[in-house]
């Protein structure tokens, strides 16, 4: 029986899958790359950013890390390119650009 | 071998305690070592509407779970039911009908559609009023049923009921005495015709 989310691959058999597909660990979305759903990506102009932090809470994923009261660089591993942060920024510091992967 | 099971059908009105009386009789028989069933026939609960309850009492466990259609005894808790319910339906002639009434058995027999078995009356309401100050006819009714049917040995029945009253009315000893008087009078005053 597999118990960790990382072991729940598309190859898992009915004998090995967890009962009810329950996941016996927390925060498993950390391992899921949602960044590859993106067609546009946000780019931050650090000169325009006033660290007002209005962008961070509107991010529906975990793409805007905040540490010691300041936001950091985008975590593109999670960013789906929704553009809400760009809409929320009052200083036009975030621009959505075509994502060239 | 004679079927040793005794089947009883109770007729009352919703709220009069016929179901409780059937359960009390099952209790009394249980305490003398019998196998018992006590169950009401359920429908919408309506105060005053005719209701039926049943007992099976036997030496062996009875597996049948149907209603009773050919009872050995019928008990009528409210005599006004005699005119609207066919209380003697299926009643065995070697059995008896026991009616809560101040009238004589002879006076009630003509209402019973030619029933040829024993007709018994007990004025349970009056006994209850005199002994308990309230119309709780169950105790004298139960005593009359035991006396007429012999399903429980009378002395064991009285002893058992006394214990039950002392337990139930531990805080009110005068109620125990009243109930015991009502019980004895029920056995003594039942008229068999």
């Amino acid at each position, binding site marked *: 029986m597999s118990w960790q989310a990382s072991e729940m691959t598309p190859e898992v058999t009915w004998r090995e899958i967890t009962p009810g597909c329950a*996941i016996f*660990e927390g925060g498993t979305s950390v391992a899921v790359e949602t960044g590859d759903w993106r067609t546009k990506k946000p780019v931050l102009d650090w000169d325009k950013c006033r660290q007002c932090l209005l962008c961070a809470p509107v991010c529906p994923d975990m793409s805007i890390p905040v540490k010691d009261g300041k936001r950091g660089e985008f975590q593109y591993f999670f960013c789906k390119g929704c553009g809400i942060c760009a809409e929320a920024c009052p200083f036009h510091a975030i621009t959505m650009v075509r994502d060239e992967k | 071998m004679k079927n040793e099971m005794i089947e009883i059908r109770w007729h009352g009105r919703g709220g009069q305690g016929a179901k409780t009386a059937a359960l009390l009789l099952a*209790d009394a028989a249980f305490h003398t070592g019998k196998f018992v069933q006590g169950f009401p026939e359920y429908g919408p609960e309506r105060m005053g509407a005719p209701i039926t309850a049943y007992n099976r009492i036997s030496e062996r466990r009875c597996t049948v779970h149907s209603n009773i259609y050919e009872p050995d005894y019928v008990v009528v808790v409210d005599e006004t039911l005699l005119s609207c319910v066919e209380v003697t339906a299926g009643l065995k002639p070697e059995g008896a009908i026991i009616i809560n009434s101040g009238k004589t058995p002879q006076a009630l027999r003509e209402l019973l559609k030619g029933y040829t078995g024993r007709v018994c009356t007990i004025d349970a309401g009056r006994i209850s009023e005199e002994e308990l100050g309230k119309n709780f006819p169950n105790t004298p009714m139960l005593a009359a049923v035991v006396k007429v049917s012999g399903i429980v040995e009378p002395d064991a029945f009285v002893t058992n009921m006394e214990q039950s009253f002392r337990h139930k009315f531990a805080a009110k000893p005068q109620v125990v005495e009243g109930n015991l008087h009502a019980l004895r009078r029920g056995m003594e005053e039942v008229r068999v015709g």
Partner: protein
Amino acid sequence: MGIRERLSGNEAIAYAMKQIDPDVMGAFPITPSTEIPQYFSSYVDNGEVNTEFIAVESEHSALSTCIGAQAAGARAVSATSSCGLIYMAEMLYVAASNRLPITLAVSCRALSGPININNDHSDAMSVRDCGWLMLFAETNQEAYDNYLQAMRIGEAVGLPIMICQDGFITSHAIENIELVEDDKVKAFVGEYTPQHTLLKNPMAVGPYATPVYYIESKRQQAQAMIDAKRVVRAVADEFARMTGRQYDLLESYRMEDAERAIVIMGSSAGTAKQAVDELRELGEKVGLIKIRCFRPFPAEELAQALRNTLAFGVMDKADSFNAHCGPIYAETAAALYAQGVGAPKGISYIYGLGGRDVRVESIKRVFSDLEEISRTGETGETYRYLDVRE
């Protein structure tokens, strides 16, 4: 030696719950199961149990409460009937597929309409494919005994379990019963020690499963039900060692050389036993198979029990409205076909709906039909209603 008592079926269930002292009860009242939470709440109020009693606003919420509690690692129980049970339907599936061994007492009652409060099996049969284990009782004693075994079975296979009895017929009837001493009950039922719970370690219950995973999950759930047959028997054997009362998936009654048999479930099995006894007195080779464990369905055992009969009737206290047979008949026919048993002729009887009284005479009429079928070889209509006015 047990304790001699006389209790109604509902009292017996509430008493078993008291002896087990579950962690949580989520309940909403409905006739005829209302007395179970009613009596049990008195035990809670008197401090006789440590259970958290959660009064909710619906049966859907009652079972949701149990699901949350069981996932958190608690033993959760509820009780219901009729419309209340089918109002739980969505959550019944959730409980089973999340593999939460909740225990639900069901005092079976007809479904509306016409509105009716009396007994049949329409409620339980309508949720028979939700993935719950289901035991049915003939008597108050069996309701009590099944309840004491319920958690052992459910927890061993990780499935919820319904303990069904017939509303009013046993739920409200006083009968003799032998109770098991408190300490023995405690020792028999034991502690609930799930490997994973919401309160122990981080855990996600009931996640989304894409088509890549869903059917694997269901196949595993199906295996739990298959495995449950062995567990139901093992727990019954252990229970028998404690009480002397032996149970199995089904009970064969006077089937030794029976040429005609009925398959039946619930309180009417007792009435039918009397009919069998009376017909045996007359030399008729008749017998009866009572289904105690409906889920998992004892398919092989039932087929073996019926294989040497000439004709059988399957008694269903619920109709499937499929224009050809009742639910237990469908299961029985499938079981026979799978075992390659084709000789006995079977009739599906729908009986006892909405509290229609089932008498010894009713069952004798069935045996009379079966006698004619086995004599003439003509089955006639195989989908019949018993004791219905023509």
